[in-house]
């Protein structure tokens, strides 16, 4: 649990300010890769991918929600 979720969220929003959709997408991709490196544990990362795919709505999320772990 992050100690100050609002501050982190704001920093994340700031990081995207002024970027084109393409640049934003690349920034997020870099963030994912950096965080993945910090986590460094493949099962945890695969679980995170499954969670991300399962959350939300739509046919893919609905199907995957049944299989994905709950945090």
């Amino acid at each position, binding site marked *: 649990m992050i100690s100050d979720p609002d501050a982190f969220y704001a920093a994340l929003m700031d990081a995207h300010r002024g970027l084109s959709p393409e640049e934003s997408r690349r920034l997020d991709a870099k963030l994912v890769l*950096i965080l993945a490196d910090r986590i460094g544990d493949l099962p945890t990362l695969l679980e995170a991918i499954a969670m991300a795919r399962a959350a939300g709505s739509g046919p893919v999320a609905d199907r995957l929600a049944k299989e994905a772990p709950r945090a």
Partner: protein
Amino acid sequence: MSFRQPRFPAMPPRAAEEAARVVVVGAGLVGLTAALDLARRGVPVVVVDDDDTVSVGSRAICFAKRTLEIYGRLGLGARFLEKGVTWKVGRVFHRDRETYSFDLLPEEGHEYPAFVNLQQYYAEAWLVEACTETGLVDLRWRHAVTGIENGAQAVRLAVETPFGAYALHADWVLACDGARSFLRRALGLRFEGQVFQDRFLIADVRMQADFPAERWFWFDPPFHPGQSVLLHKQPDDLWRIDFQLGWDADPEAEKDPARVSARIAAMLGPGRPFELEWVSIYTFRCRRMERFRHGRTIFLGDAAHQVSPFGARGGNGGVQDADNLCWKLAAVLSGEAPESLLDSYDAERIPAADENILHSTRATDFITPKNEAARAYRDAVLELAARYAFARPFVNSGRLSRPYLGYGEPAPDAPILRQGRPDWLLRHIGADGGFTLLARGEAAETGIRTLIIGRDIEDHSGLIAERYRLAEGEAVLIRPDQHICARLPARERDAILSARARVLGR
């Protein structure tokens, strides 16, 4: 100095019906390697090919260490080392900058380096020469196979020549007739896999350049925006350049020498004269046959499996197929092993092909992103890699060919002294065609060629000790293809003989 393309004479058929124990179909890199390997084991071979020359263009180019060791075993290793360009550094560029470089850091104390670049036609020309010298290889140029009956007892091949047709009855057929294999299609065998929607232009370019002997790979360079480019140095002042063109490119228009020259000029910059020697356009697939052995017809190399060119896994994979199959076929022909031993070729080389397909598919997916997300991630990796070392392992410009380890480790080389003279361990393993026992301390009398460390060879560098970790009284049994198949007490004769019998499928 440059290569002179040979034209081999076609000979008329000797009879309307002929018989041979082994027929190799296709005198390319893999077919010629198989023919030489069999001939070195005393097996006479007929090789038929629909053409009358060796490879046109550099094609396979990167020969990996394990492949060089195989050519060492076949007596051609020194030629590869002498003529080929040895390299170990790769550089990756993204847009206008160098992102990072890597060094394959080949371990010291091996006769062969990680990679040698050499035009495929040299390798084939040397193989033709060596095959001819054995006196056991009957090379038949412009003898095209036009039909096959794959019988349970023998295979009948229909062959056409400029002088007329004949039938060739073979006990065994090695199908080395390439990605568009006639034999595979004639037998109606499936060859399925992923088609990559991309086209590549490859060129051999002659020029005087002082670029180092390194592998240079560009993602999205200013001289070829949005695509990738690969540069390799070859002997004879020849450079190999691969341009990614994208799926929309018109293959005919792209082959136009003026257009190719413009692309190369943009890459090299002004004031650098060059000459185009060979140009080809290709698309590729990653696929394999379900099985490689079909009774008496056995498929090798591109005829059996195809990969993308990233990672140099096509030619190397095919040569390693021949390495795996030929000693087994020779053992079956001599009655030393049952026919079922040939099924182990499938069991061992199908997973090896799958590994090559996996790596080359992943490299292709990285190099040619299929959607916006894939492109964003690829560019993210490249941007991070320029600055942070952790991201470099994600960069995939081809995972370079390494030996498959699923059926035992290839015996590691080491410098040795033999009768006081510097020598290499691998030169004494499998060179006589048989199994080898490498032992520390006294070994049982088994009839198997035995090398005792300290008696027959001297481990003056300590690298045999380091690489084999043999305890006193311990031995490793090594297959004729230089793969370690057992570790056992050196004095236990029965254990050693039964280990060999097991490997031979008895």
